[in-house]
């Protein structure tokens, strides 16, 4: 039986899709059969970041509405045999997703997979609520700035009151993932520190992903950033997923980069 994980944030553009792609790819790399679903109906993005946009025929909405089978809509990843993408539709709107339809698709996927990763749209409205409703665990993606933290707090409140588990009197397991972390800017007081964010949100920290050029490069190439194992962001995502799977890994990339020998000599 698969575990359903929602990647959510409230605020837009903080790195949910980047995280969904990296997280699901890392789970697959570590041997878990994984499917990642794009709930951002109307704004299709995940397929680009996963590099499968040219292979989309049917989408999530088609399956929910019974116009296509799961088999027809699931796209197998180019690199990883046990990773699949269920893309969003670009032509429908978010209200096309109805709870009964979504539940049926998730139930069918559950039997086949180890993990179902749901890439939530921004906001707190219908689309975001659909993405989180059936989740058992949530990765709360937050940037170290006040508005993002505030929105994350809001979405945690919704997870705790409007998810199915909450309605059953249980709770969704929450993980904080701080992304686009820039230690220099934290040091200059322009951004909140890890400690600040942990204090305000009071949920367990899964990982810290540094602000990194590797992310932009990866999404332009359509390759989830964990494949770039030389990059800081790729390593940080790998750490986070290993921690998620129960491994004990120290947090990295929290300190300002020390200048290397050449930079110290020649400036930089």
């Amino acid at each position, binding site marked *: 039986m698969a575990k359903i994980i929602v990647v959510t944030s409230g605020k837009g553009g903080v790195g949910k899709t980047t995280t969904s792609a990296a997280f699901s790819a890392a789970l697959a790399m570590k041997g878990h059969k994984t499917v990642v679903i794009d709930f951002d109906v109307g704004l299709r993005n995940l397929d680009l970041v996963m590099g499968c946009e040219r292979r989309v025929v049917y989408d999530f909405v088609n399956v929910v509405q019974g116009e296509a089978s799961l088999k027809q809509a699931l796209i197998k990843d180019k690199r990883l045999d046990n990773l699949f993408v269920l893309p969003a539709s670009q032509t429908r709107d978010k209200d096309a997703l109805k709870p009964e339809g979504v539940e049926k698709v998730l139930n069918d996927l559950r039997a086949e997979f180890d993990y179902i990763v749901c890439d939530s749209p921004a906001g*707190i409205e219908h689309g975001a609520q659909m993405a989180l409703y059936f989740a058992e665990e949530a990765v709360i993606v937050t940037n170290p700035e006040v508005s993002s933290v*505030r*929105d994350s*707090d*809001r979405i*945690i*409140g*919704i997870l*705790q*009151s409007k998810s199915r588990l909450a309605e059953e009197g249980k709770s969704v397991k929450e993980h904080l993932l701080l992304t686009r972390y820039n230690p220099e800017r934290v040091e200059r007081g322009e951004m909140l520190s890890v400690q600040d964010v942990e*204090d*305000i949100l*009071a949920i367990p920290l899964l990982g810290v992903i540094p602000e990194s050029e590797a992310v932009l490069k990866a999404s332009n190439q359509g390759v989830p950033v964990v494949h770039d194992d030389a990059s800081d962001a790729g390593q940080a995502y790998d750490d986070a997923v290993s921690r998620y799977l129960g491994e004990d890994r120290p947090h990295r990339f929290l300190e300002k980069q020390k200048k290397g020998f050449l930079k110290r000599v020649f400036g930089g």
Partner: protein
Amino acid sequence: MSNAVVLKAGLVPLTTLSFSAADIDSIQQELATKKAEAPALFQNLPCVLDLSDAAQMLDVNALHTLCRDAGMLPVGVRNASEIQRQQASELGLADLGKGNARQAVKTSENTATETPQRSVKVHTGNVRSGQQLYTDGDLIILGMVSNGAEVLATGDIHIFGALRGRALAGVKGDEQAVIACQQFDAELVSVAGQYRLFEAAPEDHQKAVVISLAEGNLNITSV
């Protein structure tokens, strides 16, 4: 001897509505927003209309309708003009004379006070941004109150965590109500309608404090 009727002097907490605008439309809008923030609070809330200053020209009939539509029960007027007194009496509203709410309370301090029974509600967990908690009685929160969250009680509020949002105690006029929290970083606190906004971090920022009302002033004491 019959005692079918017993007269007892009592002190019943009442919310006073005072108005800083002189037009009904903006008052209506303001009420609607306030009600949206705390619908439960407005339900059958007995209140007194303070007609001083800006409100001297207002039509009591219109105000009365507004309040009823918002779910409140106006019971009297204070600081009414001659015409307003007339209107109030036709509506069956008591004329509570001149003076402000606090003085009125003081003059009746030596009359018998009935202590209403208070219930206590314990909330386990954090109150997150966008969430609101209202209780008739005392409220104990085993967790924090986030920025953008609001907790209201007719009695005391005790927060065993950080208060970063809004806390309103004694919302039906109990001036003895207090707010206590482990870590003080509130956006707004209020006791019996006396409120204080904190646009910047308050002096006792991050400390444990108790907030109470004395002589009509909000006192914030670190403990």
